[in-house]
């Protein structure tokens, strides 16, 4: 047995049974107990329903999108800890919704990470939206606009590996830097990153897609972030 993985795959009980047969097995037994306690830290702790509910109420708030009808549709807004998918055919307003949500959260709530796969991020458009939301005149909005734009971290990602890189780096930064806090992650659009790797007999493409999904869910749940991904679909005519 050389790695923890090996330990997990092999049978502990046989090990314990064989340990009991040896006469000077105390050290081995201690070692096994220590290993078991390490293994216990390898997975998420068991929580009961009450603890989960409390966590949901205290940590997983709803982020308002800034648009009342969208908020009603989402039953309060974008919930932290969840991955929300915006689905629609081409030119149905997905990117505009992403801008709206990014502006609203950046102005009022905190940090936004915007991952742009199609070079569609436009600071001018953000300025227009921020001006409208704040309700002040165009020449007085500068302070609020500066703050909002400073809260939006925009990354251009053009393939799945770049996306995984950015997300892993984000995870590291959130875990190591105490003051760094992100409220919202937007990926526009995730379909253009995933579609090229799917298809054919290649199992890796599918595995990569599923890994991205899990990484997003992990970030959302453990760091209390709301994740929004936009996805392109085609309506069939028959």
């Amino acid at each position, binding site marked *: 047995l*050389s790695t923890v993985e090996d330990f997990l795959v092999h049978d502990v009980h046989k090990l314990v049974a064989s340990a009991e047969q040896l006469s000077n097995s105390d050290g081995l037994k201690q070692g096994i107990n220590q290993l078991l306690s390490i*293994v216990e830290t390898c*997975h998420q702790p068991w929580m009961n*329903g009450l603890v989960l509910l409390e966590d949901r109420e205290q940590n997983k708030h709803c982020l308002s999108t800034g648009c009342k009808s969208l908020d009603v549709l989402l039953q309060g807004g974008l919930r932290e800890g969840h991955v929300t998918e915006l689905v629609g055919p081409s030119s149905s307003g997905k990117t505009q919704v992403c801008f709206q949500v990014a502006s609203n959260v950046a102005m009022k709530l905190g940090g936004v990470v915007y991952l742009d796969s199609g070079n569609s991020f436009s600071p001018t458009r953000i300025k227009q939206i921020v001006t409208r939301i704040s309700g002040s005149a165009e020449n007085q909005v500068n302070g609020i606009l500066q703050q909002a734009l400073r809260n939006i971290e925009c990354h251009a990602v053009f393939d799945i590996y770049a996306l995984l890189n950015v997300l892993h780096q984000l995870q590291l930064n959130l875990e190591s830097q105490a003051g760094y806090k992100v409220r919202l992650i937007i990926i526009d659009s995730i379909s253009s990153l995933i579609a090229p790797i799917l298809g054919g007999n290649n199992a890796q493409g599918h595995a990569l897609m599923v890994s991205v999904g899990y990484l997003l869910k*992990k970030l959302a749940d453990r760091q209390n972030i709301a994740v929004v991904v936009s996805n392109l679909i085609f309506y069939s005519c028959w």
Partner: protein
Amino acid sequence: MARAWINANESAKQMLSRVLKERPLLHLPPPLHRIPLGVNSILEIAGPSPSAKTEILLQVAVNCILPKNRNGVQYGGLEHSVLFLDLDCRLDIYRLSQLLKLRITDANTLHKTEGSSNQPECDETYVFNECMRRFLYTRCYDSFEFLSALKVLNHKLTSNSVHILMIDNIGAFHSIDRGFSSLPQGNPSRKNIGAQSVFETVVQEIKKLLELHSMIVLATKTVTYQVKSSYSTRVSGGLKSTYREYMPLTWQSFVTRRILVRPLDDKRKFGDRVCYSAEWLLPALSITDEFAVCDTGILDSLRV
């Protein structure tokens, strides 16, 4: 001496009554109601996504964590604890609490209308808290964590009561394990970590758990549909859609019961709600049940 060994110990009838008393069968809510489950059963709920599989698990969970009765109010539960291993990582605990609250309120309203003494309101909160404490939950983000959780569970469970182990989406990490299996090691005595060995260990660990504790395992499995149209089906009219079985043989032969659920297009029976059909594959029954999901839980076609 040899003759004594061959002589019968008890008749079949005596054995049946003894086994049923020691290991009572679990009667599950619809759509799982047709086949009662005994202890040490492994039930697999297969279906495409979405087909109310997690909803079925939550319904069973509510039935299990409710007490039989408290302060004279009949809740009709089983008072077992539920261990929920969320491999899909998408359970919303709010839905469980909603279902539980509605069940508790209904039971209390029924009790009050039957004219007994008035119960104070705080009882409902107390029962709710007690039930939620019986629901234990953890998430696993990859098969490594899944194996860790199973390995440690054996040492963690101490009580002698029956536990229900629920695994939401046993096939969750299958594509990851298949796509990224570790490189073959030079040393032949080390096991290769791939989908096959992960499931062999999973089955082994669950078997150990079943040996030491009374447990029933319910696992959901997401399947994809393949529409097979062969010449014979085209002649007979209609396409026969079957699902592709991707789990390794160790898991397939470990499962003792299997039910398939899928969404239906027909909305006539349940108003405007989405309908699902449930079909038992193991043991194979020819009856298909239909059900829908509403705010209060699962609606059977009999109860509508």
